[in-house]
């Protein structure tokens, strides 16, 4: 075969491969989504007293990242709690994910949900969802916004990248690696650890999307798409506005089949 013919055949192979991978992706994405799930891994109500961190405008990462898209890490005032979902994706599921059902009462501002991933033996948490930019995802609930009121008894997070943090669950953390009932954030270089964890409202879009809603009750899913299996997911819940005694958040987590 002549050189020219060999080149043309090879380029055709490249073109065919591009078409083939998109065809495979299309088939994979159009499989049926299972809606059944096992027993709840978390079924707990959290109150304003569980918002123990803040006020602050950032979520922990290698650098301070905003809690809402377009947010100001220096001036935003959110109060934060971490909730251990006690669950990870079922890898035998067609679309592996953890389902989160929430019900807010007394929300007078914005509530932002973000997810952190825990891998046993990794020496710390190094993964979270991307808040801004290409590939961003997250879940934001807004209701009756009022000026932020100061909460008593909260504490500032000691650091944004290397820090132990407590969870609001009554049972404490699922993996108490350090014997102090905390998880440890161990973020290194900025830019890494933002591509594999996602929050989505549609299991057929595993890489997630930014959802803004005014629904005080709803469902979203957290998952991972990287090649490292997460052993547990931890939710970050950030709330601003008037946080009064009637504030509560009921959270349930479950693993779809």
């Amino acid at each position, binding site marked *: 075969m002549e050189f020219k013919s060999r*080149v043309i055949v090879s380029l055709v192979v490249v073109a065919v491969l591009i078409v083939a991978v998109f065809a495979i*992706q299309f088939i*994979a994405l159009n499989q049926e989504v299972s809606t059944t799930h096992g027993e709840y891994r978390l079924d707990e109500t959290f109150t304003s007293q569980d918002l123990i961190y803040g006020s602050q405008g950032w979520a922990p990462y290698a650098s301070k990242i905003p809690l809402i898209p377009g947010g100001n890490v220096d001036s935003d005032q959110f109060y934060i709690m971490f909730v251990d979902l006690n669950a990870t994706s079922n890898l035998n599921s067609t679309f592996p994910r953890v389902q989160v059902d929430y019900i807010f009462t007394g929300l007078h501002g914005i509530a932002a949900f973000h997810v952190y991933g825990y891998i046993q033996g990794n020496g710390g948490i190094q993964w979270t969802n991307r808040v801004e930019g290409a590939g961003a995802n997250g879940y934001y609930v807004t209701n009756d916004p009022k000026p932020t009121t100061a909460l008593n008894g909260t504490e500032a997070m000691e650091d944004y990248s290397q820090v132990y943090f407590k969870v609001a669950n009554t049972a404490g953390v699922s993996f108490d690696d350090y014997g102090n009932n905390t998880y440890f954030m161990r973020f290194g270089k900025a830019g890494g650890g933002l591509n594999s964890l996602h929050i989505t409202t549609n299991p057929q879009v595993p890489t997630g999307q930014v959802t803004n809603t005014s629904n005080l009750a709803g469902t979203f899913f957290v998952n991972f*798409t990287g090649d490292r299996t997460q052993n547990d997911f931890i939710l970050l819940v950030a709330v601003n506005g008037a946080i009064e005694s009637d504030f509560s958040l009921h959270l349930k987590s479950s693993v779809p089949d």
Partner: protein
Amino acid sequence: MSTSLTSRKYFLVYEISFLSLMAALVYVFKTYFRTPIQLPGHTAIFWVIPFIIGIGITCKFGSGTYIGILSGLLIGFIGMADTGPLKVFEYVAMGFTMDVLSVVFRGYLTNIAVGFVLGSLGSFAKLIVNYSITGAIVTNANVILVGIGVAGATHLIFGGAGGVISSIVLSRIQHIKLPTRILDKKKTES
């Protein structure tokens, strides 16, 4: 077996040194180069270059595989690779694919279309092995397949772009000959 035949068939120390440097360069590109592009596999535009230049300069079958073994071991053991030492298989697959293609296109590696094909298919071979390992030991197949369209296309396109760069670089440096054995030189002169 004559000395010249031996030196044509086997790698010389100079060639091994040069290919090892190329492998180290793959490790550096893969581990330390970060770009703001949020696409899987886009860094292929960097790390296919040492492979093709290594193959192009030594002109011996196995050059790409050697670079693949060494760079895979470096990335697998000290490059914080997710799948650890298994990473070596990805880079061996990539190097071997390029070795085979370099035989098909022997003498034409400075052609940019050939560079594109080598980079593109080499990068894609790496992706396939990566997905096979990940699917087999880490996660389920569907998690991988729902993203294979974009990942596959970026590996092919960015790998091809890196191949084009390699061909251009190679066309400018191909006159540089690696040192040969003194005996070979004498034999050639006589």
